[in-house]
């Protein structure tokens, strides 16, 4: 059983083409959405679209959909850790009161 050909999953060009077209459309959508006044939700929409685009790249261009579960766990752990970094630090900042009793941002 030793030296057989690798039996990796090969993603077809059709799938790649669908993904790139979706990514281009989503780029258009994110520019369009930036010109609509959604107040504080502009950034939420922009990041949501960026996250959809990044997910498509990771799953298909980077074949994460087809790699072993342990590799997927590493990817997930990385994203989770990034979430911790952002979430914990931001919660600390927005709940902080400085020595003068002024809340963040301390201006």
């Amino acid at each position: 059983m030793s030296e057989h050909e690798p039996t990796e999953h090969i993603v077809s060009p059709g799938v790649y083409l669908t993904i790139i077209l979706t990514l281009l459309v989503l780029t258009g959508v994110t520019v369009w959405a930036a010109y609509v006044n959604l107040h504080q939700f502009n950034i939420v929409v922009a990041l949501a679209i960026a996250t959809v685009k990044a997910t498509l790249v990771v799953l298909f261009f980077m074949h994460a959909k087809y790699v072993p579960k342990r590799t997927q766990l590493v990817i997930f752990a990385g994203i989770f850790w990034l979430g911790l970094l952002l979430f914990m630090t931001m919660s600390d900042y927005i709940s902080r009161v400085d020595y003068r009793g002024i809340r963040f941002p301390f201006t």
Partner: protein
Amino acid sequence: MHRTGELYGQFKTLEQQKDTATLGMWIFLVTEVMFFGGIMLAYTLNRHVYFHAFAAGSNTLSLQLGGFNTVVLLASSFTMAMAVWSAQTGKKQLISVFLTLTILLGFVFFGVKYVEYGQKFHHHLVPGKSFDIFYCVDNPTKCEDVSAEELTTEREELEKARAADPDLNAHAQLYYSAYFGMTGLHALHMVIGAGLLLWLLKNSLAGLYSPRWNTPVDMVGLYWHFVDIVWIYLFPLLYLIDRHK
């Protein structure tokens, strides 16, 4: 050392050998996520505190150039994915074709970035002594590439931002530091990527990659797509902060 697809002693199958390489590459990419994540956190905090300055700074960027570069980079990810596909299916000439296209698109990106950075130097928008966010508005003759109409809206926006944040010029430098820091580190990654692609091209022209062994193409592909993902976030974070006014 030969690395042309023989099975090393510690592995049972070529598939296992390839999976191990992929796992290692992903662990490296996770460290890159942490690297860019820390920078994005610093960006987020500053943007939260100095929103007016960040919004005003963002609107001085050229959406045309930034949008064009986004399309170029996404297209280069597609050609990279196709290079990996060509290697996996044994289409030896196509590997070189797609690698060349990827490199060319990378260089188009550098070209546009060069123009963009040049404009920022020209418009006194590089953090430092001569930084002046009002430079173009105050010296329209020195910024011929910005139309009179654009300058009128820019002046209105900047006046409003200064009313809300008297220290606008100092805080806009924070935005521009984030801009140069983030796009600069992204561009550095692309320079490294372009070097790796040239190395792949050299080897693929020598006919080194096959369905049996194409690990380097696949791994550099992962790296190139990761750099693309960084840009997918940088584009809205830097160019689209406050466009709807």
